[in-house]
């Protein structure tokens, strides 16, 4: 589904990502684990098209998208839940979702299915996106992404600044999405517990390079994971 080879990028003249390669199969849930400043967000923004790739190839759903504009990648089925959520602050919860459906060329009929999956949003449909709590915004960002009916979702640190009870809820939502809808997901995180409970396999990113992969049957092994990541599991 997603095939990335030798991808490099950065901000202006400062390189951040150096020749990253990885593949994601349809229906797979891949975690990418790394500390702050290792290039996780830069990697996702390059895949989405918000930053230009300076080298390498991105194949998605059969076409080379490395130099396609962002909106065309989205139309091909690339979904993005960005860091900081990027909710439209002046649009209501409902309009944030309708904006996503409209941008994808879909009608409002997709909204019902998404609200069934994320019922918490039903009671706050009329509230402006800007006044929601961090957790509500995170769930809305996920809902908004689903309204465009993506084939693959890129999730950037959904646990950042979110209270633990909502993190549990997000885990349940993502597990259900994975099970029922068969959505393909790439998750970047530094929350080890979160990434371990969701991912089929976990890649390690360090200083802009992919430095290893934790196989699925070793994800429960704290010592081995700590060794791979160079950080203590907590």
């Amino acid at each position, binding site marked *: 589904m997603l095939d990335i080879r030798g991808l490099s990028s950065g901000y202006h003249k400062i390189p951040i990502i150096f020749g990253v390669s990885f593949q994601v199969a349809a229906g797979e849930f891949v975690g990418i684990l790394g500390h702050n400043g290792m290039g996780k967000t830069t990697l996702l923004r390059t895949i989405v*098209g918000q930053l230009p790739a300076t080298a390498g190839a991105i194949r998605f759903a059969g076409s080379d998208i490395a130099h396609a504009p962002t909106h065309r990648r989205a139309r091909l089925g690339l979904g993005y839940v960005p860091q900081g959520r990027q909710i439209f602050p002046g649009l209501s919860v409902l309009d944030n979702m309708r*904006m996503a459906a409209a941008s994808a060329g879909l009608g409002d009929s997709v909204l019902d299915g998404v609200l069934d999956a994320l019922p918490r949003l039903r009671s706050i449909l009329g509230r402006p996106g800007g006044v929601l709590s961090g957790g509500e915004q995170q769930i809305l960002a996920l809902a908004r992404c689903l309204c465009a009916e993506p084939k693959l979702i890129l999730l950037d640190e959904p646990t950042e600044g979110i209270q633990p009870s909502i993190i549990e809820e997000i885990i349940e939502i993502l597990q259900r999405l994975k099970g029922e809808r068969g959505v393909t997901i790439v998750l970047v995180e530094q929350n080890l517990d979160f990434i371990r409970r969701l991912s089929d396999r976990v890649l390690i990113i360090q200083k802009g390079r992919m430095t290893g992969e934790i196989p699925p049957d070793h994800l429960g092994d704290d010592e081995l994971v700590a060794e791979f990541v160079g950080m203590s599991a907590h």
Partner: protein
Amino acid sequence: MDYLVILLLQIGSAVASLVLMSIGLAVIFGMMRVINLAHGEFLMLGGYAAITAFNHGVNLWLAMVVVAPLAVGLFGAVVERLVIRHLYGRLIDTMLATWGLSLAMIGFVTVVFGNTVSGISAPLGSLSIGAYRTGAYEIFLIGVAVLLLVAGWLVLRFTRYGLIARGTMQNPAMAAALGTNPSAVYAVTFAVGSALSGLAGGLLAPLSGVVPTIGAAYIAKAFITVISGGAAILSGTAIAATLLGAINTLATFAFTSVLGEVALLVAAVVLLRLLPQGITGRFFRRAL
């Protein structure tokens, strides 16, 4: 009593003129953060489009309401593609480019139409209220201004394009990540803003006449209204136009029309000193 009615109509007329002058600028500046220094010349072009069409036998109403917005809207679409598109996010460069454009337009129109005032007489005749008389056309313009604001609100609030435009305005990068092409939204928005300026130029032509340099008279008031209005495109423009139009008319009635203009400028300066983000930067923040 009659005097009061006339005074209110005069205020309404001044407010309507301000709304018409600034609505196109408000759309373009509010949605795209592009400062179009050729805005006054877009109005001027609308005036010439209406008068030229009328002189070639087109019905006056058709010339003002259809030909003028269409001509300037198309012109705006071309300008967006050739100039504005390459300068998004570069405020100073855009101002310089559109200032150059305004000088070029003044020069070009002077060559074609000459440096003289052209005019058409206002239709609809006049209306007597007690001992006073006022132009019926000015009352018609009040209706048009209200209609434009209401229509704009309905489009932004209830249509798919309005939703996409509002979302793109708030976060273009995120809109793109959802599948909207921001530059297509900007192109349509710029053309719509230009068409509104064309319409305003056409409708104001019978009152003010047109000369190639008339843009200078429009642009200052348009900018003052839009900046005083603040972030909310429609309600900001409406509130600022009402406030400034009322102050202008009252000072004109009490003193002279020159002092009316002075009062408008002083009011705007005081307003922006107190509310640097404009009226809707402080109040009615969720309004459109």
